[in-house]
């Protein structure tokens, strides 16, 4: 199992290389640079050239990139063109906010979609099932930022119950969390439903009923636990996506998180800031996915048994043969 984790971490290196180069390259392709944003309107052409030289922007792209990477591997993410602050500091300052929002959205999403998905699967084919699937489809089709704006209009402007933006206290967390949560909920509800449907048709549920196990326990202990793997996969992907994916919602609610940091830095062509933030996001995403893969072992004893024999080496083959024949 340790070897597996190590392998996955090593695989992260080419991913990060690719991501950083892509971001660097694409930002360079975009018209204009940081100097256009930084320089006062009345700056002369020479002033601008001097600024470019100070920031090192006059060098070729590849040199700049290699320079950036050589700093990066030594743990230096560079400084923001705009504020001169170290990228790491800015990122760390915003990250907790995004994590908080991500976690809150996850609570909303899981709290709604698991019960709804299970309910739907239990009433497969009835109008109740159809209604919840239409709801899920709506959640999936409504653009997040638009839903955010509508929620803001209703709860902040009309009713005045909740703040329309910023990040002070629990109240300001509610609207953005609902906005992101409902978007996530849609996929998760559908996954829960189809995964549960798969399991509900299995013979061993009938066995459990024949044992005299109550319906509630049949669903919770036998069905849900077996249906959990695809559900966890989706949750993992979504959680990983939140850190970078909440860009729009964070902007709408002026939530001081990583998503907004990236948008703002993009607008000011702040290449080190954008690259740094995206690299960190990518790393976070990959680590979450790795954790999810490790979580499988705890959810499914069969996978755990596989990990256990992997250490033994040879017995692994037998295990897999058995699995294939089963």
């Amino acid at each position, binding site marked *: 199992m340790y070897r597996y984790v190590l392998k996955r971490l090593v695989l992260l290196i080419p991913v990060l290389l690719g991501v950083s180069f892509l971001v660097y390259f694409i930002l360079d392709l975009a018209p204009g640079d940081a100097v256009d944003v930084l320089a006062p309107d009345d700056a002369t052409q020479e002033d601008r050239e001097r600024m470019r030289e100070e920031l090192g922007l006059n060098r070729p792209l590849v040199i700049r990139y290699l320079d950036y990477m050589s700093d990066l591997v030594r743990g230096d993410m560079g400084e923001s063109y705009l504020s001169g602050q170290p990228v790491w500091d800015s990122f760390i300052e915003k990250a907790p906010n995004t994590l908080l929002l991500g976690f809150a959205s996850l609570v909303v999403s899981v709290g709604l979609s698991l019960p709804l998905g299970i309910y739907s699967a239990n009433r497969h084919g009835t109008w109740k099932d159809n209604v919840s699937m239409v709801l899920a489809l709506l959640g999936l089709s409504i653009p997040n930022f638009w839903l955010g704006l509508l929620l803001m209009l209703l709860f902040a402007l009309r009713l005045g119950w909740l703040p329309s933006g910023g990040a002070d206290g629990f109240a300001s967390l509610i609207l953005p969390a609902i906005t992101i949560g409902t978007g996530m909920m849609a996929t998760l509800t559908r996954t829960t439903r189809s995964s549960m449907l798969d399991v509900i048709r*299995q*013979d*061993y549920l*009938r*066995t*459990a*009923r*024949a*044992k*005299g*196990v*109550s*319906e509630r*326990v049949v669903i919770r202990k*036998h069905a849900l*636990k*077996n249906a959990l793997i695809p559900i966890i996969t989706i949750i993992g992907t979504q959680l990983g996506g939140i850190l970078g994916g909440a860009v729009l919602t964070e902007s709408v609610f002026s939530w001081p998180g990583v998503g907004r940091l990236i948008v703002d830095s993009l607008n000011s062509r702040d290449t080190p800031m954008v690259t740094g933030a995206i690299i960190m996001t990518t790393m976070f995403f990959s680590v979450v996915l790795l954790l999810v893969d490790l979580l499988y072992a705890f959810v*499914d*004893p*069969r996978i755990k*048994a596989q990990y256990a024999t992997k250490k033994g080496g040879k017995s692994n083959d037998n295990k897999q043969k*058995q*699995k294939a024949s*089963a």
Partner: protein
Amino acid sequence: MADTILEVKNLTKYFKTPKGMLHAVDGVSFSIERGKTLGIVGESGCGKSTTGRCVLRLIEPTSGEVLFEGNDIAKYSAAQMRKMRSELQIIFQDPFSSLDPRKTVSQTIAEPMLVHKTVPKDQIRSRVHELMETVGLADRLINSYPHELDGGRRQRIGVARALAVNPKFIVCDEPVSALDVSIQAQILNLLKDLQKRFGLTYIFITHDLSVVNHFSDDIAVMYLGQLVEKASAEELFAKPSHPYTEALLSAIPVPEVGGPRRERILLKGEITSPVNLPNECRFAKRCIYASEECLKGNPPLREIAPNHFVACCKAEQFYQKNS
């Protein structure tokens, strides 16, 4: 009077389908004495498994009575029925899909005891060991998962699980049809031993006639959701009085070179669709003896000799011919 443990009266199960009502089980009645085995045979789709499951209410019957020790369990509430499950158990056909893949052998066997609280918690472990020994599972397998075991062992788990709550009555729903022949015999012998040891009553559902003869006291033959013949095993094999039974028996392979063989009767045509059945003998379309008379209504099951029931208007003729 004989000690009847289970009596089924007019059991019916219809399924709604887009084309109409599917008559899976259509007015089936039978009774079983304590400690005996009733074999139910018939081809695929004749409703034999549905009958077995309706008796245990794993499928809700459309109508009919299921008297277990005199009480109509078909009218029990879900909660009452759950309590009854410690007395009525079932062994399923497919030992590969009927075990929860996430549960170890001991968890699977222990669950019914935890649910019904028949055994104090601290004794469950030793009871699991005892049951595993009873069904011939090695102790070392106690923490194995089903996917690590072969079909025979899995079916032994299924048997141990059914026995865990000391049931009086077990429906064996094709318990060996998914297994290799060599293992079939082992499981059958195990079931027979257990019956002797614990005084169990079985309904034994199968499509394998050589198995059912070996195993049952009485045999009921089903066709398209109805019983067409029911008699003691010897009587049924000696004097089959329904053309369908006759055809089934003629299909049993004789494991002897040049041994005596029944004349092979090949059934023609497809089985009639169980949806929206016409009012005529259900077997008439495939019956080589069918005549005008057979299309004038579905013949009821009637007793043509002591404890020998047949649903065919010409039953007496066949009975005479074969005796």
